[in-house]
């Protein structure tokens, strides 16, 4: 058992070896570098779906405009005051910091959970891209209300798209990252210009007041949601905008970026990416779906993202859907492969990426994934959220309680049971919380924090230094 643990630990460490040491001061980046890094960071294929979903959920224009504004501000503040301060003090990635706090066992579980969630996310992106490719072959693609594959043609298109994305993730990940950088400014323009261009199709307007009236009555009217959708209000929108990147800010995975920051204020630069991607692009896709529904005389829920983009911007729109899905599915799949590499016995990287790509492509065949994208995004953040709370507690609170910091690393534990139990019990508690899924992560975070502190005190008493000698070589 100890040997097996050692092997897993060694494999995990080897994967992340290149960033094992804290970032040195000569490698720190300026604010301008962070602004450039975040610009265009949050424009993915899924933005075509999320903005349209808000329309289907019957949101009101005021709720959307102000909910997104407040939610995105809260997200930027979470990056600035939760993630960045820890990153600039420690200058390690979450992987290495979590290893010191929870032991290699916790990083192992975290990686598996992350890989699975990444596969689903990449699946949604491939589905969205396939809706645009389907147009070219006159294949009936699923609308925003479908659960099952719409036919053999759809399945073939998804399999081919997934296959191409997987092959590219295997052969040319670096080139695709460069290509993504090329696509970002253009992609933002597609959203902005196409939404502007289709606005006259929604209804006539002669002033800003007319335009606002149009938005309130024809786009986000706050009427009955589409069949099978629940109504969403201001707080739902606000929380959605806040938690849609929960994994990055409150769950701390962007420590990998902010360890290069000169100070925590670099977190404010995330606004450069968040507001175009999660504000402008969502509003724009809402405008596009509303205009497409009016002009095509089709209920909005029956229109696929590809059809919507084709209607609004023609070939460029369809290309944007494909590229937005493709360029974001690729790194997501790559990360999934990286995370899975820890559990596969010496498989080469290409085999693991192929496995992740196959799973992802199968997920992508089911439009249910992108139909339920809002809920999936909520679940994604929720599942990883307790780990963010554990790290926060260990970093800021444990020293103030007089407990030894980083007990797992210092005492050579394979796993901190306090961290694992806090994680599992928090998710269990969140399951039963009597509130909407979108809101659960916030009380859940405080539950995780409290549970971890309590359990850490107990674990400290029960497992004094060097009590667990079953994991040789794991001490930091």
């Amino acid at each position: 058992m100890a040997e097996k643990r050692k092997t897993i630990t060694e494999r995990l460490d080897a994967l992340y070896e290149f960033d094992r040491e804290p970032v040195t001061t000569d490698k720190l980046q300026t604010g301008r570098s962070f602004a450039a890094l975040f610009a265009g960071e949050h424009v993915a294929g899924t933005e075509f779906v999320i903005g349209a979903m808000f329309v289907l959920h019957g949101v009101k224009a005021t709720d959307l405009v102000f909910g997104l504004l407040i939610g995105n501000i809260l997200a930027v503040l979470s990056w600035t005051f939760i993630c960045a301060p820890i990153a600039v003090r420690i200058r390690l990635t979450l992987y290495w910091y979590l290893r010191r706090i929870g032991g290699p066992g916790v990083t192992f579980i975290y990686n598996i959970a992350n890989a699975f969630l990444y596969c689903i996310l990449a699946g949604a992106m491939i589905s969205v891209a396939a809706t645009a490719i389907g147009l070219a072959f006159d294949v009936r693609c699923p609308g925003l209300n479908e659960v099952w594959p719409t036919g053999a043609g759809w399945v073939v298109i998804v399999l081919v798209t997934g296959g191409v994305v997987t092959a590219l993730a295997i052969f040319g990940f670096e080139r695709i990252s460069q290509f993504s950088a090329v696509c970002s400014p253009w992609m933002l323009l597609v959203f902005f210009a196409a939404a502007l261009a289709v606005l006259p199709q929604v209804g006539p307007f002669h002033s800003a007041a007319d335009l606002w009236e149009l938005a309130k009555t024809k786009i986000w009217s706050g009427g009955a949601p589409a069949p099978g959708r629940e109504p969403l209000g201001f707080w739902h929108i606000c929380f959605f905008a806040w938690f849609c990147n929960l994994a990055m800010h409150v769950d701390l995975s962007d420590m990998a970026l902010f360890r290069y920051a000169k100070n925590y204020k670099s977190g404010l630069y995330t606004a450069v990416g968040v507001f175009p991607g999660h504000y402008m692009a969502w509003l724009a896709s809402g405008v596009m779906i509303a205009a497409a529904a009016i002009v095509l005389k089709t209920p909005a829920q029956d229109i696929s993202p590809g059809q919507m983009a084709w209607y609004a911007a023609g070939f460029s729109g369809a290309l944007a859907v494909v590229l937005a899905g493709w360029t974001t599915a690729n790194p997501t799949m790559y990360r999934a492969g990286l995370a899975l590499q820890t559990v596969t016995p010496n498989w080469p990287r290409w085999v693991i990426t192929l496995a992740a790509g196959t799973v992802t492509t199968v997920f992508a065949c089911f439009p249910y994934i992108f139909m339920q994208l809002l809920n999936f995004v909520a679940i994604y953040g929720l599942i990883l959220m307790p780990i963010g709370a554990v790290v926060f507690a260990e970093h800021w609170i444990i020293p103030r309680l007089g407990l030894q910091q980083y007990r797992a690393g210092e005492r050579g534990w394979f796993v901190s049971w306090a961290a694992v139990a806090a994680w599992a019990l928090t998710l269990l508690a969140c399951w039963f919380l009597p509130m909407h899924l979108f809101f659960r992560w916030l009380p859940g975070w405080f539950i995780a924090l409290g549970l971890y502190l309590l359990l850490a005190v107990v674990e400290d008493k029960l497992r004094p230094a060097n009590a667990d000698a079953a994991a040789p070589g794991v001490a930091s």
Partner: protein
Amino acid sequence: MKIRVAIINACSIAAIASLLLGLAAGIAAFAGALDLDGFKFWFNVSTVVWFIASPFWFVPGLFGPEFAKAGDEAWLRPKKK
């Protein structure tokens, strides 16, 4: 080397111009000066120019080490410290 620097500079200007063209097409359609089909046409032109020009500007290294080196001297590229 000079010709490569000139190509990257020209491409960076063409890429920016293509974005402005796409934006102008959107604004023109919004203002009613262009119909939706006209917008799509000009936006497609903008797309084609962008994807031809911007790789030279953003990732000159894609076109070989000589271009990568020329990229360090081009106008709108980050300068090496």
